């Protein structure tokens, strides 16, 4: 079995209103349950807004902190799921189902070493 990171990329800015987000999150929950039932699910997490992030670098033994996310863009990592799958086809099936639930958000499927 291989493991894959399914990253959810979403546009910066406020989340959709509850009446839009509610059904989407319910469907995502169902998908996660299905993954767990089949032994696919390894770990999943939703992330707070990118502004809540702190970047830390070492400079001569001293930590230097920067407020905000590592990359500034129009989109950011909103959450992720780690799954285990037989091969990329199986991982892409799950990624495709996640993309359908979260449309029009993009899902990046990336193999874990």
């Amino acid at each position, binding site marked *: 079995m*291989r493991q894959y990171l399914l990253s959810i990329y979403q546009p910066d800015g406020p989340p959709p209103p509850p009446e839009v987000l509610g059904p989407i999150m319910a469907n995502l929950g169902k998908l996660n349950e299905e993954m767990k039932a089949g032994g696919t699910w390894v770990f999943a997490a939703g992330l707070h807004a990118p502004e809540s992030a702190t970047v830390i670098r070492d400079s001569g033994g001293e930590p230097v902190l920067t407020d905000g996310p590592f990359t500034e863009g129009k989109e950011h990592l909103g959450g992720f799921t780690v799954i285990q799958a*037989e*091969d*990329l*086809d199986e*991982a892409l099936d799950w990624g495709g189902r996640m993309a359908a639930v979260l449309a029009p958000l993009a899902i990046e499927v*990336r*193999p874990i070493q």
Partner: protein
Amino acid sequence: MSTEIERIFRAEYGRAVAVLIRYFGDIELAEEAVQDAFVTAVRRWPELGIPPSPAGWIITTARNRAIDHLRRESERPAREVAAVVSFGEEPDDMLRLIFTCCHPALAPASRVALTLRLIGGLTTAEIARAFLVPEPTMAQRISRAKSKIRDAGIPYRVPRDADLPVRLGAVLAVLYLIFNEGYAPSGGELVARTEMTAEAIRLARLVVVLMPDEPEARGLLALMLLIESRRPARTTAGGDPVLLADQDRTLWDRDLIAEGRTLVRACLRRGRPGPYQIQAAINAVHSDGETDWRQVRTLYDQLLAITPTTVVALHRAVAVAEVDGPGPALRIVDDLTSMSGRHHVWHVVRADLLRRLGRPAEAAEEFRTAADLAGNAAERRFLLGRATDLDAAAGVRWRPPPTTTPPE
């Protein structure tokens, strides 16, 4: 002997690689082992003679090389490695490898390159030339694609039924490119590499068997068969190309034509026309005793509507020349400026239209430009010959032939 080994390399390389990948699950290892086996063949066959089953010899030798390599390099117990003693070919080996090479998670350009490399056994240089990119760029493209297959876990198998329709389009596109590489090689001495067209046809047949309800797969097979049927008439005994209009039609392969036409009729009846089916229909018209150019032009109109590319527009112009004359056709060709200096066929078509319009000096120049761009030597000779013929008509002083042209 060396040409014979090269022929066997072309015909058997992909099969051998496919078998070894199934057994060892490692593309690099499979390729290196098969290449090693051919190096050994070049050294040993001249004294031993070519074995009764060259492919079997290559596969066995490559397998032994791969096992030796794994014993040296890997932490796997030697016993496990040695357990891979007897193996043979499975009918789906090539098809599995094709679906891996044509996986939608790979960029389209990588799919084509990888299939030509692994299935066709083309060198990186040949593939680079065919796609007009520098060789290091192509080498990097192929190497990245192999790494992605390994790291991302792109499976080595024929997709399950539900995924097949989606995966088919990419496979057909790649097969047609392989066929074209065989039909009009990008380099070398030959006008056609029949083992490549034969391999493309063999794979297309497999795809048709696997997906009997896909009219485009049948359309592609029909297209290949109808083009292939003219091969015996396409070249002179000396290997020079012969234009369609000048071909001896009694040399055409009637069996291939019959099979191709039956396929065209069958798939068009399904009422789901696509680019391959229409191109097959065009070639079916060409296989009639006398080409009905109006019908050909109508089919090209349909094809251009579905596939609005410069290549289709150029071929449509050839049909327009037959129906409306060379003047209107030349205007179409002249609008396709993006092909100038890049596609030798554009210059060939333009040259012939200029010739028919009574402009021999310009036509000769176009034939020379086409010859510069043509990838294979026979075609270059032919085009330079046509240029020389036109020089006489244009009253140009005789000039010595280029030194690269061998004497007849």
